[in-house]
């Protein structure tokens, strides 16, 4: 395939929006929940019987950066695709976004938080949430101010996201960090890491990574009799964490997230979502709703060529359900919040906004 310019004169009867993220694999829950947000927005739009219908197509990366370029190419090759919600994770964003940028296909991520993503000069990169440069300090602040921890161990999973976030937290905490460790994704035995935490006599542990490993790590910490507070980032904010750790071990874990508690989202999002999926909106559902809304607005405005959608997004300035949606010239939102959540009674509940 080659030329990707679309003739924008007459509005087509159908366009596609891609959802790019993990729908299967170890961190699939995160992707599934994000997708549902976007799905809701699109379903609502299609229900208004518009001239141009939108279908949501999946690009399931399994959270694996290695798969990302191939999938990106696939999306690019499909000329009906005019925008992407995602990529969901930082690692796959880094791998796929250069291709989207070259193809001029807009990507609006509802979840990728690595700060460096916006510094590559990609013209098509946007995200609707604060990055780890705000999440990290918020986590650090929570650890030092709310938990008043004196000895902190910082653990990461070596991923683009996990390591990036952990490094920021580490930097902010400074000398209270008494030990660090790196684990591997897909690992199940964390004996050496647990030993390290125990021997450091830590009163708080920060983990940068995703829920699958976090759950196992927390369980093994608890089994070893470690009582340190467990603080984690948005990658762990999923019920999958509680499944993996067990409700008892998971209890009291603190999670930060640059996302709004869904029930605080504007409009009728919360009730609509519940009605559509018969479940509470989970992490980044509302943000994904916003991301999809931007592309939907472009279609409503008759902008159905890729170039037009990019321009439209760049100039966008409207209230969304999570925040005022407006981007700076790097594609970062101008308006960010970070919340702390905690596991209480086997559920993830909002704790407080970290300012």
């Amino acid at each position, binding site marked *: 395939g080659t030329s990707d310019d679309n003739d924008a004169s007459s509005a087509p009867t159908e366009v596609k929006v891609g959802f790019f993220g993990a729908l299967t694999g170890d961190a699939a829950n995160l992707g599934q929940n994000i997708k549902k947000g976007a799905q809701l927005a699109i379903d609502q739009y299609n229900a208004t019987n518009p001239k141009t219908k939108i279908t949501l197509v999946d690009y399931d990366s399994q959270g694996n950066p290695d798969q990302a370029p191939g999938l990106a190419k696939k999306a690019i090759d499909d000329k009906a695709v005019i925008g992407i919600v995602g990529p969901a994770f930082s690692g796959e964003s880094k791998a796929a976004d250069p291709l989207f940028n070259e193809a001029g296909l807009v990507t609006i991520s509802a979840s990728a938080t690595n700060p460096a993503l916006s510094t590559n000069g990609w013209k098509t990169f946007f995200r609707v949430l604060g990055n780890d440069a705000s999440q990290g300090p918020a986590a650090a602040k929570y650890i030092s101010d709310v938990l008043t921890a004196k000895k902190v161990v910082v653990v990461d999973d070596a991923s683009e996201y996990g390591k990036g976030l952990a490094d920021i937290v580490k930097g902010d905490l400074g000398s209270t960090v008494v030990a660090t460790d790196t684990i591997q994704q*897909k690992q199940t035995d964390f*004996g050496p890491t647990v030993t390290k935490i*125990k021997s450091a006599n830590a009163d708080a542990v920060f983990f940068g990574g995703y829920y699958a490993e976090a759950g196992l790590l927390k369980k093994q910490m608890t089994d070893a009799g470690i009582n340190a507070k467990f603080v984690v980032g948005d990658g762990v904010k999923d019920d*999958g964490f509680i499944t993996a750790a067990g409700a008892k071990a998971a209890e009291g874990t603190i999670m930060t997230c640059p996302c709004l508690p869904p029930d605080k989202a504007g409009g009728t999002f919360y009730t609509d979502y519940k009605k559509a999926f018969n479940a509470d909106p989970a992490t980044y559902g509302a943000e994904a709703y916003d991301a999809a809304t931007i592309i939907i607005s472009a279609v409503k405005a008759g902008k159905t060529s890729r170039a037009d959608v990019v321009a439209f997004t760049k100039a966008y300035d409207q209230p969304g359900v999570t925040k005022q949606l407006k981007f700076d010239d790097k594609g970062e939102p101008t308006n960010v919040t970070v919340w702390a959540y905690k596991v209480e009674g086997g559920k993830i509940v909002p704790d407080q906004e970290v300012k």
Partner: protein
Amino acid sequence: MSYLIHNFAALTGTGLIKGAVYGLVALGYTLVYGVLRLINFAHSEVFMWGSFAAVWALAAIGAGPNPSPLEIALLLLVALVAATAVSGATALVVERVAYRRLIRLKAPPLTALISAIGMSFVLGEIMGLRDKITGWVGLDGTLHLYVSGARDNTRFANPLQSRILFNIGNYGVSNIDLLVLGCALVMMVALDQFIRRSRLGRGIRAVAQDSDAAALMGVNKQQVIRVTFLIGGVMAGAAALLYLMKFGVTRWNAGFLLGVKAFTAAVLGGIGNVRGALLGGFVLGLAENYGSAIVGSQWQDVVAFVLLIVILLFRPTGLLGESLGRARA
């Protein structure tokens, strides 16, 4: 280094437990290899199926919140029976589907390896797609408890709460630790004696060395092969339960990494050698832990593999050598 010394007890304890699980799974590789000179690549999935059997058995019984010690013992027994039965059966299925025809045709060993790899994919994928597969036949609703989240971690409702019994150095030894270690040792010794002492054990060794001559001694080769797979499967099932008690969750692909490690342990100890499997497991588990204490835990697998290579350079047939024997040049 001083970190290693200070935490020696803890690193040793967790290393041994991990090693015990490696060792038990390694048995399956070692036995099948010993008899057929074939790497049973699907053995990791035999383990994985056993772990799910244990999880589901307890889920089906639906144990109450505060079981009495007797109930705990019974529940664990049920889980053990389920895990060993399913693993054993899975191993037999592997033998039937992936191996039997190829053995009869005396096909090249590599072909059997590929067949086993195919089997491994199939067994893994069936587990990972169990929601979809049951959905096809319309049973996903009924079986929801068992099939939901097919690609996610599935939690084992361990009836035995982890409790630290005593401390060695800075390591709190828990009831589960003792149980895992004890069971692994007992099973290993029992199996070793079985192979050495029993008639069937001698039959297994005979088939391993010359299957035609074994037939002339009245050894039923088919039966020996099946028994070998079965024993390997049962051991993997037991390992699966111990693994669940220690780590708490399983997953459709839980076997893969563990399988690689267990196979490494088998080779380290001397493949085809039952005692070597346990020794290899322990050495590997300890090496990973000590190594990660010295160079950082992200390097633990690298340490393990470097150690493996070094050991094989100096002892080209593993630590204990191949006990099932080699011919003269």
